């Protein structure tokens, strides 16, 4: 009753193929966007921006990217951290070499560079499949991290190898560097997240997306019906890496402001993002956001409950937190292996009938 798909008639192809064909969906998303763009920036403070919302948006972008590769094209990757590092170091190099060009352009360019690197490391996927590929992408992870650690050119020969984001403005507002206000940080990330989500949504329901899904479901069969696995897999790697690269760029320049490659972009990051994708739901745009929200909020929440409310010693709380997150993941996989996105779908099913039983 509340959620209605019936009765929403279209009279032109254009209307039929818009991003959100259902009126209810469309209004729902418009409302969410309105709140996100108009209300939250007015009430946001440093803590909410830096500890919750900015990491959530950045991780959402990375999860979107990985979801394209893993959820839509079926190629499991554990190299996400390494590709994020490419994005971060590319922005650093670009913004320190060409300080006059807008940082937003640098971030997009960094995504492009990451896409090229991603395609390069995607080449073995033509031969290697399944877990072998997953482990093979770890080669990218470890090699890239080592590279950025060892070649001083990447960090402008600073003594410690740390990179620090220079201060840059967009339309007179600081968007990187310590003087950035909480709303500015949040809005930059939000613009990228919304824009990329829109691109992802439209890519995945078009020809490219269908090819990816054909490859995912069975690559040999897809090849036989005329999907070129080379272009399909490589475009998946490229698009995915572009997203991940932008996420890495934002992660470094807007969120953290300084980074050290082994610490910020290590193997744990790859696992974390893969988790977001799985918990959110493979092959779902909404799922990427939901998964990121779940894994960003849960530790913060647990920490605050265990330390703040229950007053436990911090180390004990940290260990228990690890246990709870681990156990929750297992429980979650048992109860709903298709992720939060599936829960959302079920909710919609329910809402379609509610409050009438039949």
């Amino acid at each position: 009753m509340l959620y209605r798909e019936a009765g929403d008639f279209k009279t032109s192809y254009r209307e039929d193929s818009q991003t959100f064909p259902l009126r209810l969906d469309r209004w729902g998303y418009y409302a969410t966007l309105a709140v996100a763009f108009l209300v939250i920036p007015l009430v946001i403070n440093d803590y909410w921006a830096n500890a919750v919302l900015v990491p959530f948006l950045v991780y959402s972008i990375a999860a979107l990217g990985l979801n394209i590769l893993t959820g839509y094209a079926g190629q499991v990757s554990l190299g996400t951290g390494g590709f994020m590092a490419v994005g971060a170091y590319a922005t650093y190099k670009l913004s320190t070499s060409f300080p006059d060009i807008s940082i937003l352009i640098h971030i997009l360019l960094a995504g492009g560079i990451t896409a090229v690197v991603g395609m390069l490391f995607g080449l073995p996927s033509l031969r290697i499949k399944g877990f072998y590929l997953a482990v093979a992408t770890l080669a990218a992870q470890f090699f890239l991290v080592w590279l950025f650690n060892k070649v001083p050119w990447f960090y402008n020969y600073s003594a410690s190898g740390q990179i620090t984001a220079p201060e840059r403005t967009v339309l007179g507002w600081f968007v990187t560097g310590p003087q950035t206000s909480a709303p500015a940080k949040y809005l930059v990330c939000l613009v990228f997240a919304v824009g990329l989500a829109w691109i992802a949504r439209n890519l995945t329901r078009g020809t490219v997306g269908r090819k990816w899904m054909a490859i995912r479901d069975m690559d040999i069969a897809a090849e036989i019906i005329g999907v070129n696995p080379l272009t399909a897999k490589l475009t998946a790697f490229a698009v995915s890496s572009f997203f991940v690269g932008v996420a890495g760029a934002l992660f470094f320049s807007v969120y953290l402001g300084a980074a050290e490659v082994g610490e910020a972009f290590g193997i744990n990051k790859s696992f974390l993002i893969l988790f977001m994708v799985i918990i959110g739901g493979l092959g779902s745009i909404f799922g990427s956001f939901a998964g990121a929200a779940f894994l960003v909020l849960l530790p913060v929440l647990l920490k605050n409950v265990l330390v703040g409310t229950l007053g436990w010693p911090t180390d004990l709380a940290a260990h228990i937190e690890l246990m709870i997150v681990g156990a929750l993941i297992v429980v979650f996989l048992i109860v709903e292996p298709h992720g939060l996105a599936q829960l959302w779908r079920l909710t919609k099913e329910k809402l379609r009938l509610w409050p009438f039983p039949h």
Partner: protein
Amino acid sequence: MEQFLYAAEVVVNGLMAGVMYALVALGFVLIYKASGVFNYAQGVMALFAALTLVGLQNGQVPFAHMINATFGTHLDTFGWTLPAIVAIALTALVMVGLAIAIEKLVLKHLVNQVPIILFMATIGLAWFLEGLGDVMWGADIKMLDVGVPKGASEALMTVTEQWTGYGFYIDRLDIWAAAIAAMLVAALMVFSQYTKQGRALRAVADDHQAALSVGISLRFIWVLVWSIAGFVALVAGIMWGSKSGVQFSLSLIALKALPVLMLGGFTSIPGAIVGGLIIGVGEKLFEFYVGPLVGGATENWFAYVLALIFLVFRPQGLFGEKIIERV
């Protein structure tokens, strides 16, 4: 000649390191073969086993820190110490208990899921065990001493000095590890070839459904294989723990085992051993000769890149089952 001897020394030490990697990789292979689960928690299981072993040996009170924090008590140890062999036996029992719990609470509910979900579940498990190990036994660095000797082998050094004029260095711990690994593999082979359970295990590894249809209990086999993997983790934990103390970093050895698996194939026990040796020697030689030219610390990625290049030519690994795809 001198250069050759150095190289030989590096190779021998690489082989020894390879054995240590293979010890971890073995646990992965066992579980993957029998249940198709890529068990990321194997490294954490080694940590957990080693923590439990030390805790039992020193008579620590489990969860002492948590109990103290909640009730304000001052528990620490029971005040006894157990002989190593008793503690090892008890730890093995704990690992069997853990295997049963994992089967009951996790695996049973995940039958028929796609591999990646199972893989993720084991990562969740790894986090859980990591937290549990610390809560139970505390996060301090612990010394593990079950009587495995360490330090350079004197005998070997003098013998090689007489023969070649250059005393070879090999850690006695590594020699022990190699011997124990060899025994472990032999025992596993005997077990899987000559016992009823072993045959059942191989049957399950071959074909789940066929095994089920001739009356083999899949759940029993899973408990069995996770117990064995737990035992292998215990052995790996003892070896690595004797080397540099028992602490969080022990769980990271899983990362050293992954390229070994890729190279050797996920399904082959000899593959794990041979893969381990190749990786061990390869990365040591590379770090020793090429490392200084490119700034060192190459060991982390070299193993992966080596395995990756290898896989491009042989996608199922060295000894892995040939991948046959049907539409």
